């Protein structure tokens, strides 16, 4: 098998189809186009130099991260279980690719956004949410990898629930905190995914076995 075939097989196994790529591109473009239009309308009086984070932009990040989360699923559980080589390297590589893609696209599109949105914080948020997505995928499966970032954004966006200075996703004046958490989340998320893989099929299998046991009783 040549390299292209191997790559194509890997991408197919990871559910990277033209449709998924189209949905991913649409999610990114919609996010940034929507933010470019709505942010100036939301903050028309912010003086130059003031940086903040818009809740719509942070929540919007969950969309492309959810789409990428689909690629974390490992459908061929039996093959993986019977594999002669350890799979953590491939998983770690894939996790790194997902993280790098998320951070790179966010960083590339940051200049398009209005200046009032803190670019540094947005990139840190993207890394943080992506790391959480990887960890969630490792615990409850790639199908539900979006649950972690969505919950985190929900908690952070709840009015007054998290003190402003500790709200890493929104504290534009404290990007250091966001970066620390982003790095931690990326490392832990990638490690979790590399160790556990997509736990979804295993989790479902255990559930099926449990249910079968209950029915037998």
């Amino acid at each position, binding site marked *: 098998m040549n390299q292209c075939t191997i790559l194509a097989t890997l991408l197919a196994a990871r559910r990277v189809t033209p*449709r998924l790529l189209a*949905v991913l591109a649409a*999610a990114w473009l919609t996010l940034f186009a*929507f933010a470019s239009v*709505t942010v100036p*309308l*939301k903050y028309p009086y912010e003086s130059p130099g003031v940086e903040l984070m818009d*809740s*719509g932009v942070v*929540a*919007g990040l*969950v*969309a492309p991260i*959810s*789409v990428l989360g*689909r690629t974390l699923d490992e459908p061929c559980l039996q093959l993986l279980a019977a594999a002669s080589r350890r799979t953590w390297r491939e998983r770690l590589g894939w996790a790194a690719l997902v993280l790098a893609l998320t951070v790179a696209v966010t960083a590339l599109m940051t200049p398009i956004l209005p200046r009032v949105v803190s670019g540094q914080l947005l990139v840190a948020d993207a890394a943080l949410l992506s790391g959480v997505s990887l960890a969630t995928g490792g615990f409850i499966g790639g*199908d539900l990898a*979006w*649950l972690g970032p*969505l919950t985190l954004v*929900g*908690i952070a*966006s*709840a*009015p*007054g*629930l*998290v003190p402003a200075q500790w709200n890493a996703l929104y504290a534009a004046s404290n990007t250091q905190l966001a970066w620390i958490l982003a790095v931690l989340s990326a490392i832990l998320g990638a490690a979790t995914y590399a160790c556990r893989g997509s736990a979804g099929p295993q989790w479902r299998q255990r559930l099926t076995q449990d249910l079968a046991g209950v029915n037998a009783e």
Partner: protein
Amino acid sequence: MSARLSLVVPVRTGLTLALVVAAAQAAGYLGRWVEWVGSWSDTERANGNAIILSLPAAVGAAAWVSTTARRRRFDGLIQAASRPAWRISARQAAETWLWVCAGLLVGALPGVLWTAREATFDQPHLIRWLPLLAGGLLGCVVGATVGHRLPPVLAAPLLAVGCYVVLGFASIEAETSTEALTLLDGRSMTLWTAPAWVYLAQAAWPTLAAAAVVIRRAHPWRSWAFGMLAGAAAAPLLYVGYADRRPDPAAAALTCRNDAPGVVVCMPAATARLSPAVSGPARELAMLLRGLITRPVVLVNLPGVAVGKRGYRDVVAAVSQNWDGQLPETAQVVRFSPMAGNSGEANWVDRDLLIDALTRTWIRPQPGQQDLSGKNAHATPDDLLRRWVFERLGVPLDGSIGPGAKPLDGSLVTFEPLADEAAWLDGLNQRQRAAWLRAHRDAIRSGALTLADFQ
């Protein structure tokens, strides 16, 4: 034998979704509890605003349920069923909505119980909850309908995120819209009310929209006709809701209480339960500044919304009319706001801001002096006295208590040249201090205190 009432949404799934919606609803308003606790109108408004989180949760829940067949690969059975697919989808949405309603009510419960425990005015109005439930209905119908067209696993997160983003955008200056169309309104409702039909109108919009979506799916050829009819029927709602939020005279009626010796607090009935929170710090201040404050104090909170532009005499008259006890003739009437800078309508009392405002009443601020560089301005004698008061009462000195508060921690004005005077003030015992304050009362109150007076 299975029950006749077979559910499309399994109980386990429904319970999970209800819990998610309940958590989102609770998270949407509990964080800012200080703004609504104890006031029914604010509690209901806060729960209405929590839809910013619970509606995306509802939309996601409906999308998740509607894509179950595709995720589990039995959608072919639905296509081949004798009943039309739209009826199955509508039933899914309806059942999901019931679970969502349960979640919304459970999520609202902590706030309702808390306010029921604290409130001394008004009562819950069930009709004010209708827009929340109607919003949930629209969310479920939209989630179920649009979810069909999205990738099955991603439909829930994508729709939830989309709903949140759209709601956030729609909330920009929402309070300037007509009341019937204002889904998210961050303004205080403590002293305000809106007629019941405004809430009916707010509920009618999403209900009509949900009906339109279902009918469009069922009979595409009738959708335009229905849309026209629904639009025509709903058009009057645009007018009935305009500018109908109005002050509530019962909520604004002045109520006076004497919870602490020498301090009478008069507040609107809706916030009268906060009187002890006002009289406590005021009493502390009066005790500390004994000698300066020699007469009984009547603290009056008359928000502009309640009384318009009343003069001092009107305020005194209003207090006299609403005070059952004997108002001392020598009492000093002081107007105050529970929260400086928001026209006195707030539903809570900020102790630090209250002390700051009252201190300014008795210790008149003096114009500052600056050196040639514009930095290191010297503290004025009143700064020194107020800093001493703040230190005694535990009020932050860094100006963080609110807008307009002057930092007294040395960051804006320097206290170094006044070190001797500060030490002298600290060294006074209670009796000496009262005597000194009495001797310089007029100077302190008129802003004429000098450094030479600190001896």
